[in-house]
């Protein structure tokens, strides 16, 4: 090796020679490694690598360009969300769990809130309007999550323009979210008992405009990619995982449906009124990366369809349960200094109603008590089964919150889809699993 780069060192260890590759010197390293001793090369890909969706580290053992073994190291984004929730009241928990999977925050919020409602025994008391808004927000979120997968997945295998188109529509959805929740991500919009505030004026029109545009845009993606020979060659027959392997490894969501099993919790164990919507569960049978691509594309169409039905179902009404001991005191309004409790509400609790003031104070400082017990609430997130296991000891804080994250479980399939394939296909296959490390590591 003739490198002079001070950071591209070579050192001998008991495990063999270790090279630090800094780019541009791969030929030197490979030549040296092959002539010196190694018939096998262990490559450390990540944790900082543009195609690992965050900080995922892959340890690949290579024989030439073929991957003989793949292992993964995770935990780089572990932030202790589950532990933190044990020290905050149930409502505050929403702001923590929403930060787990940052591409589908509304799903984690909803699953968590539904689990709290189940513990409280108020699942059936959540107002219809809140349920419809939740479904609508979740389906919009499913589209935006799939769009990130499409855009970045395209980037990773060289179809750079896919990102420009996918992020255009994602931006539109994030604008809708910003208008409704105040934030583009980490919304904390879905709360135990309903949602934090009603749709602002103009939101319905904006969503209607989106659902009219979106089907044409999905056609555009198909025109851009589906028949494209390079796209097909990179995806077809790559990263195969059949139904047996999926179920054994706990892999759910689009990956399982791409292998041929039409398992969708929205259909099989409906929640939030999903039984009242008409939609199909798209499936494919080939179980490869191309099948997953087609399933996700079809899912976006179905989601648009569901959002349209939500708009038709929206009727005026409350968006939070009646019980003042649970409903967070939020009569929000836009003031000169930003969003806050409306002046009418403040006047009411400060000047006219002592009882309201007490409720407000107790709820905000203590939170509400939840009867002891445990529940598990699974929902269908863009990546598969997202479950919340919640244990209460009767206090105002959760005793234990566990997020069953599909990213975490699905990543176990990496060795199965990568071993035996070419190293270039590792990137396409990991992308097709669509892991979000914030959710995986929590």
């Amino acid at each position: 090796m003739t490198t002079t780069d001070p950071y591209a060192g070579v050192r001998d260890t008991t495990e063999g020679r270790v090279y630090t590759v800094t780019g541009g010197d791969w030929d030197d390293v490979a030549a040296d490694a092959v002539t010196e001793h190694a018939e096998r090369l262990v490559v450390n890909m990540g944790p900082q690598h543009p195609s690992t969706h965050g900080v995922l580290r892959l340890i690949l053992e290579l024989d030439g360009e073929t991957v003989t073994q793949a292992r993964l190291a995770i935990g780089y984004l572990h932030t202790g969300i589950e532990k933190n929730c044990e020290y905050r009241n149930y409502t505050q928990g929403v702001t923590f769990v929403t930060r787990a999977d940052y591409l589908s925050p509304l799903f984690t919020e909803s699953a968590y809130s539904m689990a709290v409602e189940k513990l409280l025994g108020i699942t059936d008391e959540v107002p219809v309007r809140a349920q419809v808004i939740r479904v609508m927000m979740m389906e919009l979120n499913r589209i935006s999550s799939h769009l990130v997968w499409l855009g970045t997945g395209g980037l990773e295998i060289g179809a750079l323009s896919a990102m420009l188109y996918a992020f255009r529509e994602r931006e539109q959805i994030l604008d809708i979210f910003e208008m409704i929740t105040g934030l583009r991500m980490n919304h904390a919009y879905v709360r135990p008992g309903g949602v934090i505030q009603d749709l602002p004026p103009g939101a319905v029109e904006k969503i209607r405009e989106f659902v009219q545009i979106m089907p044409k845009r999905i056609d555009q993606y198909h025109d851009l990619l589906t028949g494209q020979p390079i796209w097909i060659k990179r995806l077809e027959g790559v990263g195969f995982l059949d139904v047996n392997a999926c179920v054994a490894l706990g892999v759910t969501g689009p990956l399982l449906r791409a292998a041929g099993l039409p398992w969708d919790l929205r259909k099989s164990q409906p929640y939030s009124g999903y039984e009242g919507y008409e939609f199909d569960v798209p499936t494919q049978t080939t179980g490869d990366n191309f099948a997953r691509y087609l399933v996700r594309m079809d899912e976006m169409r179905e989601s648009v369809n569901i959002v349209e039905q939500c708009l038709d179902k929206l009727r005026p009404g409350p968006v939070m349960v009646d019980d003042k001991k649970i409903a967070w005191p939020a009569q929000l309004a836009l003031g000169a200094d930003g969003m806050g409790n409306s002046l009418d509400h403040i006047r009411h609790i400060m000047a006219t109603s002592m009882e309201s003031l007490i409720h407000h104070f107790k709820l905000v400082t203590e939170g509400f008590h939840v009867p002891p017990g445990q529940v598990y609430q699974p929902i269908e997130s863009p990546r598969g089964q997202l479950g919340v296991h919640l244990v209460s000891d009767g206090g105002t804080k959760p005793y234990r919150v566990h997020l069953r994250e599909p990213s975490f479980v699905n990543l176990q399939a990496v060795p199965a889809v990568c071993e035996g394939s070419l190293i270039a296909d590792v990137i396409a296959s990991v992308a097709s699993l669509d892991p979000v490390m914030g959710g995986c590591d929590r």
Partner: protein
Amino acid sequence: MSDEPELPPSSARPYGGYFDDVSDALAAAYPNVSQAVERSIVDRGELTLHVRRENLRDLAQQLRDDQDLRFELLSSLSGVHYPMDVGRELHVVYELTSMTHNRRIRLEVAAPDADPHVPSVVAIWPTADFQERETWDMFGVVFDGHPALTRIMMPDDWPGHPQRKDYPLGGIPVEYKGATIPPPDERRQYA
């Protein structure tokens, strides 16, 4: 967190819904069931079977393979630490899904802090691999028979198991406009 999360007593038959079918099918597939299952609790529309750890693996095998049970998907596996449940401080919770019959049940296994061993179910549900590693990492439960039980979230040389109740949350007081806000675990508790 001073309150003890009270576990309800065993529920009385009939449980309602498919829970009776599951219990009957389990009794037929696993004759030793009265010994293996310490308690069956139906609460909030969910069935929890408290299983003795010695029997876990045999019972799990039947739950997966018997044609009337077919819990082929282990949805979730995680731990809960109950320091006040003396002699059974560490609980492991298994959420099972039967896609064939569209059913869900929960298994719960307890182990004492002094002997934190629970048999691994990786051989039955390979998806338990990462989830058992996480439960070891966070709670210190040793899963006997796991192929490579190493830490998964925390660094390999990390001392302690962070999600146990005796492990502090950590944090520092924060000053804001002259007032000091203590870290979350030192703030006022509401029983």
